[in-house]
């Protein structure tokens, strides 16, 4: 669709605005994997309330938009349970070991010109590109 880039840019601005509110308001880096991971492994016990509030917003706002507009977004998530579990495990382990994901290292790190953020983003994008190149273009399995 021709207008996709406008939605991408507008949605991106909202994502960055969320990160700006979290930084300037609470003094924290908006990293989705860190916020959830800290709740799950107990390392974020002292800040559990604000983590839960953030996650409630992440789930609640799309729910609200869906209710108001009467539609669910296009998702195209695979229905292959084995692939979902494998990919979920990789994303969960990887983001916590690397201490960041698309939002933390990508959005918050790159905007700060953090070498770690830039390097992590380059590595996970490259790994994703190679995954698609091999599994979709070469083998045709995803």
């Amino acid at each position, binding site marked *: 669709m021709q207008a*996709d*880039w406008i*939605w*991408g*840019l*507008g*949605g*991106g601005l*909202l*994502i*960055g605005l*969320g*990160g*700006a509110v*979290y*930084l*300037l*308001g*609470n*003094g924290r880096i908006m990293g*989705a994997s860190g916020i959830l*991971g800290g709740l799950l*492994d107990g390392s974020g016990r002292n800040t559990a309330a*604000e*983590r839960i509030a*953030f*996650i409630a*917003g992440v*789930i*609640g*706002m799309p729910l609200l938009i*869906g209710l108001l507009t009467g539609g*669910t977004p*296009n*998702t195209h*998530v695979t229905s292959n349970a084995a692939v*979902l579990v494998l*990919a979920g*495990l990789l*994303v*969960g382990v*990887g*983001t916590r*070991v*690397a201490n960041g*994901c*698309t939002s933390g290292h*990508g*959005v918050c790190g*790159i*905007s700060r010109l953090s070498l*770690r953020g830039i*390097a*992590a983003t380059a590595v*996970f994008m490259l790994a*994703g*590109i*190679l*995954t698609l190149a091999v599994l979709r*273009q070469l083998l045709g399995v995803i």
Partner: protein
Amino acid sequence: MLRIFLALAAGSLFGAGLMLSGMTDTAKVQGFLDIFGNWDPTLAFVMGGALLPMALAWRLTEGRKPAAGGSFPAPPSAELDRRLVLGSVLFGIGWGLVGLCPGPAMASLSYNSWQGALFLAAMACGMIAAPAVSRHLDRGAASA
């Protein structure tokens, strides 16, 4: 109370942005990574759009304190260790496989897909297992 309200506001903006930008559509995410196939550049606009307010926000931290108290994060480390690289490799493979990263995986609960919920559950298990994996990597680094 202010901290919780601001966290809810930040999460709501993030969630709205993920949904409107198309980050919750795995076909768009995989389309962006599929540079040798039918490449979809939308994600570059999402990242570009997100970097603008954030870059401004980092500038505004100078000489100030967070609105809800406390202090801003310390200057970033420049150290590139094996945790950062290997963790990012694993994340990138998983991200490419399905097209979901942690934020959209959480947001997927809002549109009632069992696929998103299953991915999120597996991701949670991975996050719980991660400290053990990190320790293993550190041992490997020490003996190397």
